[in-house]
């Protein structure tokens, strides 16, 4: 009960913050809602209805914390097609049906749906949506309404429109175009202006305020009509009472037609992808590090969409831009979403007549800017830096989406990605044979309680959900090690997602390390580049893995020298007992102190020969002592006991240290020398530190723990251990 009370009191305490955040968000939501609805050729108020219904329903039933729901950018393209082919009233029916499907997805726990799309294909689709928005609205922004069949035609005609705009004679059109260009300028330069009073109001609201003020100036001061052509003013914003009184009629008569269902599917697909991506992105921003219940949110979004459809609104999705503004204004819970809806209602009730004073080009400038953001050259550059093949996927998706439609577009992206993966690996059997196998193993290691995840065969967008499923059940403040050494192919969708997880874990106090990619080859230096295991590893690697970069960072941090290249001369290891029965191949990823006293390295060695040969990769620490000490081997009781027993060694007991004797296994030839060497200081050191396998060859020590590569955190621990061990001994 006390917990409930305290949660109520925090709720009340944070209420003012959330009301304020909701207010700021509503300032953006208002112009965006109007603009998005008009871009979809729906009545402008439809966008506001979607935002209000979304804000209320999702804040009550949703499972996320600081997200904002409302009409989304991604849906503009689909809604546009739906409205032109089906008509407005049937589109409302399609919106309702897609809401039902969305809720069903939530009930079926299909929150993982978005994981099945390669990230470059999603990028391509978003860019296409951006171009659809930009292409259509650009002309309106310059007061040049045109109607074309094809989306690409809109884009191709942009130069003509600019040319026309420069040569306008009609004063109304000139003013309209100026309003559009100025608004675009405000959108572009607003983020660059660092003024705290100016930044209080978001850019879209500045546009609204300025244009309303402009219109009042002419009316009240100049006593003239607004010089902007009436055709280019927002029309049809009803009074609040009318919205309630005149519910639109929803037309379900086309429910049997193919075009109806293809619209419904497209709406559902885009709505779910956009929402899921946004929820994931907003979770990363959440200052309280909470985890959203994605499936619950899908259900709430579905419900909100159904309601919005009946009231004459658009689809409701989770939107990233408004949500991030919400977080930036220190929202702490869902109530801010509710207040954003409340303020929207207040605006409509109080200012619905003022809203008609906003020029259409000004509003469309906001959308042109959003469209440009989705399809900016920066995105393309970014994708190119990941890999040339990603660009093919991106452009195939982009063009098919523009030419045919969203669903065909994303499907073509998926197929292209798969074909490219097959070509890169020169094998389709790798994918076909293994796609259904549960290729991810996770367990908690006994030592250290790390979560260890090993991935076999391949890991791409096709089966990433398996890896994700495992990652989802790990609390983010734990240590995770993902091992790809058994994995032949990792694609960039996985690398990108893993990077997101890494950021999430680091932010919440955990550690997230990817090992075993050092032998894979990548075409570009980008950390998200896809990686393929090479049968014969390259001598010169084209790029460093994240782990290698981390090691480089450790090197600068600890003033060490880092060498990633493979070194075949490993004679300094020959004197160690451990390597008597093993053949070392090479060491790589070396971290050494300037005087080469401490040296950490990854090593590849094999046990047995020919068919019984097993290759092992692990991380070891080498400590040069510079003085003679007895030869010995120290390990956890019972680990290598058998192997050494053959050589005639047996456990050496140290007197008066029964705990040490119980926990450690100490072997060596010269029993007396070892007994004198292990003085109280050394024994206390071993007793109070983590277990490692430690070997002395007389003048150097070899320290390691696991028969796998160490994560960066483990490397640091190992280095620290070695440094202190050296101090204790000398």
């Amino acid at each position: 009960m006390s917990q409930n009370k305290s949660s109520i009191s925090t709720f009340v305490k944070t209420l003012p913050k959330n009301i304020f955040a909701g207010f700021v968000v509503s300032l953006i939501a208002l112009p965006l809602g109007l603009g998005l609805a008009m871009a979809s050729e729906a009545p402008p108020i439809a966008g506001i209805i979607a935002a209000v219904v979304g804000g209320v329903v999702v804040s009550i039933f949703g499972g996320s914390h600081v997200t904002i729901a409302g009409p989304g950018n991604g849906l503009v393209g689909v809604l546009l097609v739906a409205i032109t082919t089906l008509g407005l009233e049937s589109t409302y029916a399609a919106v309702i049906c897609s809401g039902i499907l969305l809720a069903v997805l939530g009930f079926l726990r299909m929150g993982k749906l978005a994981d099945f799309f390669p990230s470059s294909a999603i990028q391509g689709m978003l860019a296409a949506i951006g171009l659809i928005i930009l292409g259509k609205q650009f002309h309106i922004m310059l007061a040049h309404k045109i109607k074309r069949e094809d989306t690409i035609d809109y884009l191709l005609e942009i130069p003509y429109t600019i040319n026309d705009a420069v040569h306008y004679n009609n004063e109304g059109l000139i003013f309209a175009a100026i309003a559009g260009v100025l608004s675009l300028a405000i959108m572009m330069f607003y983020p660059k202006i660092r003024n705290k009073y100016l930044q209080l109001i978001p850019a879209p609201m500045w546009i609204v305020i300025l244009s309303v003020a402009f219109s009042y100036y002419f009316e009240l001061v100049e006593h003239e009509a607004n010089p902007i052509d009436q055709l280019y003013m927002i029309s049809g914003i009803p009074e609040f009472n009318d919205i309630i009184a005149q519910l639109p009629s929803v037309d379900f008569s086309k429910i049997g037609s193919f075009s109806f269902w293809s619209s419904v599917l497209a709406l559902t697909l885009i709505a779910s992808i956009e929402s899921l991506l946004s929820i994931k992105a907003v979770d990363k921003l959440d200052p309280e590090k909470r985890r959203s219940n994605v499936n619950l949110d899908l259900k709430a979004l579905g419900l909100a969409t159904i309601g919005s459809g009946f009231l004459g609104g658009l689809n409701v999705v989770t939107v990233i831009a408004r949500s991030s503004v919400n977080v930036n204004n220190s929202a702490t819970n869902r109530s801010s979403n509710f207040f954003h809806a409340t303020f929207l209602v207040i605006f409509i009730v109080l200012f619905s007549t003022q809203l008609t004073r906003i020029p259409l080009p000004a509003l469309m400038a906001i959308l042109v800017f959003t469209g440009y953001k989705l399809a900016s050259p920066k995105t393309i550059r970014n994708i190119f830096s990941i890999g040339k093949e990603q660009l093919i996927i991106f452009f195939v998706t982009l063009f098919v989406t523009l030419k045919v439609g969203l669903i065909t577009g994303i499907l073509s992206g998926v197929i292209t990605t798969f074909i490219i993966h097959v070509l890169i690996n020169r094998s389709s059997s790798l994918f076909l044979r293994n796609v259904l196998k549960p290729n991810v193993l996770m367990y908690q290691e006994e030592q250290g309680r790390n979560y260890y995840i090993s991935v076999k065969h391949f890991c791409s967008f096709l089966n990433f959900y398996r890896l994700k499923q495992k990652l989802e059940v790990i609390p983010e403040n734990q240590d995770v090690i993902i091992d790809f050494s058994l994995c032949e192919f990792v694609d960039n969708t996985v690398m990108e997602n893993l990077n997101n997880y890494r950021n999430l874990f680091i932010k919440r106090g955990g550690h997230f390390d990817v090992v075993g990619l050092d032998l894979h080859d990548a075409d570009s230096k980008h950390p998200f580049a896809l990686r393929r295991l090479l049968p014969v590893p390259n001598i010169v690697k084209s790029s460093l893995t994240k782990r290698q970069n981390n090691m480089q960072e450790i090197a600068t941090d600890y003033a060490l020298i880092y060498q990633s290249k493979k070194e075949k001369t490993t004679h300094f290891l020959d004197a160690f007992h451990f390597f008597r029965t093993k053949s070392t191949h090479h060491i790589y990823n070396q971290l050494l102190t300037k005087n080469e006293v401490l040296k950490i390295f990854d090593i590849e060695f094999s046990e047995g020969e020919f068919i019984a040969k097993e290759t092992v990769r692990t991380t070891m620490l080498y400590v040069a002592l510079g003085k003679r000490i007895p030869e010995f081997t120290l390990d956890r009781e019972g680990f290598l006991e058998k192997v050494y027993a053959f050589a005639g060694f047996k456990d050496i007991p140290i007197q008066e240290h029964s705990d040490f004797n119980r926990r450690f296994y100490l072997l060596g030839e010269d029993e007396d020398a070892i007994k004198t060497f292990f003085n109280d200081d050394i024994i206390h050191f071993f007793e109070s530190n983590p277990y490692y396998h430690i070997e002395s060859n007389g003048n150097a020590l070899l320290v390691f723990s696991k028969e796998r590569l160490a994560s960066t955190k483990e490397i640091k621990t190992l280095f620290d251990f070695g440094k202190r061990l050296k101090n204790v001994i000398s």
Partner: protein
Amino acid sequence: MSTKPFNAIGIGVTFSPNLKANIYEAARLSLMFNSRLILIHVGEKSSDKEAKFQSILESFTSDDLDVELVFKLGKTVDVILSASKEKSIDLLILGALQRENFLKYYVGSIARKITRRAECSVLLLVKPSEERVQCEHVVVNGLKDPKTEQTISLAFYVAHTLGADKVTVVEEITEEELAIKVEDDKSLRMANIAKERIRLRENSRVKRIIENIPRTYTNDIAIKSQPIFGQKGYSIGHYAQIARADLLVMNAPSKMTFWDRLFPHDIEHILTELPTDVLIIQ
């Protein structure tokens, strides 16, 4: 568990490049387990063949190896199965195939059929060798199953006999067993508590089983139990590969229907992707 679980060891032999290695492995195991070795050859009996087998076995005759040769005509699968029944073989040894130019092994169609239908224990060898390779680490399943107790105790017997120094009992815990779907912080916390509870329960169950095994088999072996969360059957193979086990010991599947092959689970996963030598205990 009887003191001598493997009285007769059988192996199907053909004249393949692996013949010598296969027979050497089988003969060595027979000596270690102190059991009779039965070589089953599908084909006509001839003195020529017999001489060849005998010449390979020559190096073992000094050790008093009890060998019997069986020649029988018919379909390979049927011959081997019927012969193992007639001769009351307790352990059947089968060789695996290696995928071209990859270090991956799988069980061929004939060996697979035999594995499915055999009424005795089956040992699948991934890399038979003429030289003895020391078996160091044995992984055994700790599934909650009536057969498991026998499987674990046999695993310890085998580990002891082969001189292994480490046995890991792997408990596979499936998603369904967890019964909590992780969706947000609260369900994550619940799931972790549930997991910990399952882990402790499984550990104590395995510990009880091990306590019932004669001390002689468990004394000088390091015992570890490792719960893993994943698909039954497949994950244990994956684990064996990572833990670099030399032998994986598993329960025989309860029953095989057409559907089991279509939707592979348990043992079928292991057969398509042998991680190491696998011993299936009937």
